[in-house]
């Protein structure tokens, strides 16, 4: 069973709409991360989350983005008003300690039309 699942696997939305991407870690994790990868480009760090608050965020993570753990299990990334350039794969990651690594989920492909 995968340690991290993400839903949906593919989300198509219209420009200006809000989207919520979900990450469900299987076991107890304390550190969570979101990354994105625009097609053909690098994997880019968005934000890290620890103890129910943002630990670090990149310049990409502007006011359009927010994260939360609404029920202590799911970890969500919300984009308030999507833009065409938000089209990308979004990966959730959790911190594992054996080995010490960031473990990535399968990703959500977001397509903004």
């Amino acid at each position, binding site marked *: 069973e995968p340690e991290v699942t993400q839903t949906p696997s593919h989300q198509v939305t219209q420009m200006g709409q809000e989207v919520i991407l979900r990450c469900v870690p299987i076991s107890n994790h304390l550190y969570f991360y979101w990354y994105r990868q625009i097609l053909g480009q690098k994997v880019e760090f968005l934000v890290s989350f620890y103890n129910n608050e943002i630990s670090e965020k990149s310049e990409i993570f502007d006011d359009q983005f927010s994260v939360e753990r609404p029920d202590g299990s799911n970890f969500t990334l919300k984009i308030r008003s999507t833009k065409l350039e938000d089209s990308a794969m979004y990966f959730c990651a959790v911190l594992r300690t054996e080995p010490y690594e960031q473990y*990535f989920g399968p990703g959500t492909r977001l397509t903004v039309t």
Partner: protein
Amino acid sequence: LAKTTQPISMDSYEGQEVNITCSHNNIATNDYITWYQQFPSQGPRFIIQGYKTKVTNEVASLFIPADRKSSTLSLPRVSLSDTAVYYCLVGDMYNTDKLIFGTGTRLQVFP
């Protein structure tokens, strides 16, 4: 975080050993070297991590010279399924939140 330089692409054939070298001249004392693998439309997958000398696991080996300014990921006897992008990351893994990915090395394995 130390800047890394690795080849853009490499080709190999099934059954061969593949060595991908990464340069990180500005590596700091607390930095570790970590390699990830990524298949198309999938999340990066941790392969191996080391600090110095040699590390080996069931997937790969990582060679790190004494000056730690470079490292080599060694994949023994590659198969078609090893075709992927391989990323070398350098950083203080225990005191940093973010992973900084470069463009990686695109490995193509031919039959």
